[in-house]
């Protein structure tokens, strides 16, 4: 049930409609920091393979790729190709939640969040103490361009991700991944060569 595949006509819970397993989207992220008057804006592309994982490729103002596999292995691939495993538990958790939202993994999300649906908005409220400490809620809104994901944090350092140009893919592998991202960072991690 990938979230990326939702169309503007759907008026129900954004997470409800099952779609294709392979997805592409572009993102614009706004990050707010306490004490910083205006948000930090970055842009990039997302690739989803519901069997393998998610790629977050930031194109500007810096270039880097985050690889979140569903086998719980996460990497940061820098512009120069340097691959760093992500060790920080909080960073892994946040990345995992975002990847699951993009994938539309209801089973996972229902374990950790209570869902509220209102018009075109779905709100995820954390049910566990550990998540509640960091996340107040996550809101999923339909927009004319696609979907907006807003992460409201308890420390007000909120994050808003606008997904647009969303489309289903018929095929996704290492080669097509590189072509879609117009870069070759991270694809080898998500689609490792078979021996």
């Amino acid at each position: 049930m990938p979230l990326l595949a939702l169309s503007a006509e759907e008026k129900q819970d954004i997470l409800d409609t099952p779609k294709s397993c392979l997805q592409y989207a572009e993102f614009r992220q706004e990050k707010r920091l306490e004490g910083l008057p205006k948000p930090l804006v970055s842009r990039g592309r997302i690739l989803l393979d519901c069997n393998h994982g998610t790629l977050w490729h930031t194109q500007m103002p810096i270039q880097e790729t985050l690889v979140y596999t569903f086998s719980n292995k996460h990497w940061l691939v820098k512009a120069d190709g340097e691959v760093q495993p992500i060790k920080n538990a909080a960073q892994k958790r946040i990345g995992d939640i975002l990847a699951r939202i993009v994938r539309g993994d209801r089973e996972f999300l229902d374990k950790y969040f209570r869902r509220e649906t209102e018009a075109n908005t779905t709100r995820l409220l954390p049910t566990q103490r550990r998540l509640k400490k960091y996340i107040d809620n996550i809101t999923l809104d339909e927009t004319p361009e696609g979907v907006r994901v807003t992460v409201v944090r308890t420390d007000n350092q909120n994050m808003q991700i606008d997904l647009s140009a969303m489309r289903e893919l018929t095929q996704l592998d290492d080669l097509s991944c590189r072509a879609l991202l117009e870069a070759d960072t991270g694809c080898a991690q998500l689609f490792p060569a078979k021996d």
Partner: protein
Amino acid sequence: MPVRPDSGRVVARRRAINIAFFLAIAILVIALVQISRTGLVIDTSLRSLAPEISQDALSEALINDLSAAASRKAVVVLTADAAAQVTAASEHLRTKLAELETADYRVRQADPAETAADYVRLLEQYPYNFLRPSLATLLSKSGDAELSQWVLEQLYGSAGQVRLTTFERDPFGALNDYAIYLQEQMSGDHPDDVQTVVHNGASRYFTVWQFELPEDGLALNAQAEWIAELDAIRADLQTQFTNVEWLQSGVIFFAADSARAAQQNINVISGVGIAGIVLIMILVFRGARPLAASVLAIVGGVIFAFAICHSLWSSIHILTLLFGASLIGVAVDYSLHLYYFRFAFPSNAAHAKTHFYPALLLSLLTSIVGYSALAMSGLETLQQVAVFSIAGLSFACVWVLFSEPWAVKTLVIKDGLLARFTAGCVQCIRPFAKVKFMIAVSLLLWFVVIVFVGRFVFDDSPKAFITPNPELLENEQRISQWLGEYEPATFILVHGASDAEVFGKIDRLQKLVDTSNILNNAKKNLLGIHTLLPSPEEQLRHQQLNGTFYRNDALAHAMTSTYEIISAEQMSELRGHYEQQSGAVLTPRELMQRLPGLPHLWHEEGQEEGQQEAQEEGETEISPADRRIVTALLIPKNTNLTSLRDAVKLLPDTQWVSLVEETRNGLHHLRTTASYYLGFALLLIGGIFIWRYGIHRGLVLSLIPITVIGAIGLVYLITQMPITLFHVMAAFLVVGLGVDYLVFVAEMSDEEESRQFANALVLSAATSSLSFGLLSLSVLPAVSAFGTTVMLGIIGNLAGAFCLITVWQTLKETNR
């Protein structure tokens, strides 16, 4: 109505008994009120059994803190042959724990993130002092472009996805970068990570679950609840995931296992002990009153002892209860002696005898002396056992005297069979019951013991306390091997007089360790204050390096113009704040005070005084002479301990502490000291006997406990049973109980009915044997050692008492 000449003394005695009884009741009520305030706490900690370690007070406080922290941790590992099975079981466990957390369960996962978050708030007060090592290298070597790129990655990239610091305090993200690094260092194994290990030649996958026990985690009730909750979670998980193995490690599991064994022992000892005593009382005295008075003496004594100990220590150790259960056999002795005495000399008789009372008091006194010796052991738990026993026996004695008029009102003794048995025993012993023969036996025994003293087997290892459950031990060893955690009972202590000095010594040790490949642990290094906090010098160096961010014009231009993140005014303010903070340093002392959740690796004293004096004298620096610092370094598992120990020896003021060795040395010291005290106690008792009964009789009386102790020694020599501190401590009780018998024989044998008191002694020995004999069957080695020794002592003492009856008769006839 004629008035008996001694009626005044009888009334005074009765009044004194009544006062003593009501005083005891008043004390009991106060103690019970005290318990109602504190609540019932039964301690099962094994640490409190070990002797105090031979360190200075500062080091000891540090080690106690570390031990307490280690004992409050528990680890569960889920493991299987396939990663998918572990992942599924872990997901189930995670959900289950989250559900239970909201239902106020005691079982809660440890959350180092909380302490890490508090730490970050503290770091923000020194925002320029901390740099991740890689950033420190970058700042000292890289140019403008690399610096700008790094800052942009922190702000826009994934590096800044987790933002622990505020922009105002940390505009370039350098402190956030350090905070994340610190969080990684402090978090340890995370249950989200499925790890792999080769076990018995095959790959095993596992996840690690750390639990923090509540403050009262080792109290019996809290422990039982915690274990029950965890067992329920385990049962649920194992029902659903049959291929997943559940391993667990932690002091609480061993403590709970020992407590369970001790509880079973207590139930058997108290159950069988009371049943046996009730049977004996019914068979011999055949009346409700003597039975009720005896049982009340036991029950009252145990309640009184429990209340007193609990009030004094605010808790009671499970081992105290176990030893205390053996009190049943001793407490009933007073009733037995009283019934035999009153049967022979009814209180309404024309010439009522009163010599029983001084004998009873002397008997209580000797038991108190015997139990007091336990208090000299230096082990708090044995001190508690001593107080428990003394309080219990004293109450039982007072109760027996108080209830005397009621209990002996219709007293009947039917002990024909017992009398025949006793007479038979005395008859058997008669040919050998000669002073010369007894001296020869005693000399022979002691000659053999002294000649073969080198053949005795001694055991001073901590295993003298408990035998760990093999399954738990296997779990513990596997987890320890897989996780490569820290040694729980071996530390390195570093002493010094200033922060810089201590950090310098740690640095030297760390370099030595790094170059010699001692640790053999890829995951972990020595954990010390240097892991949690950079040295003052390092902090100042980081401050200097941080200046690169604030003085770099290219970066300022990128921030203010290219990316318009902040204005030029804001940049100027940030530079001003950086300059203001120059020279500020976070000290280990402040860190420990502000973050109680961190491992207490640093203790110091004298600083406040030093600060005060320094302030008075207008000095800013504290004189090193005023301060004493000790800090601990934790050693990763799988370390080559011998090599590390050798390395530690090379460094000044650096000390190797092994609690197992310390405990062994402590137990050895206590055992040898106790042996000397035992000799001294025998001399003292000999002196008392000579003072009361004259030189000839006194020496004969003294001969018996000396011979009994020698005989027990010979048994242990022949059987090659390893002798522990508990065997020696039990020998004190043997002496106390033996003297108790001898006093009764000596005091009562002037009367014609003295043979009847021999029956009382046999009954007394039977009840004591029942209790201590059951103790000797305990699965806890300490308890078993105690029970076996006292049991042997009771047999020896009874034989000695029989000899004495005959010898006494002979002496009396000779005197006539």
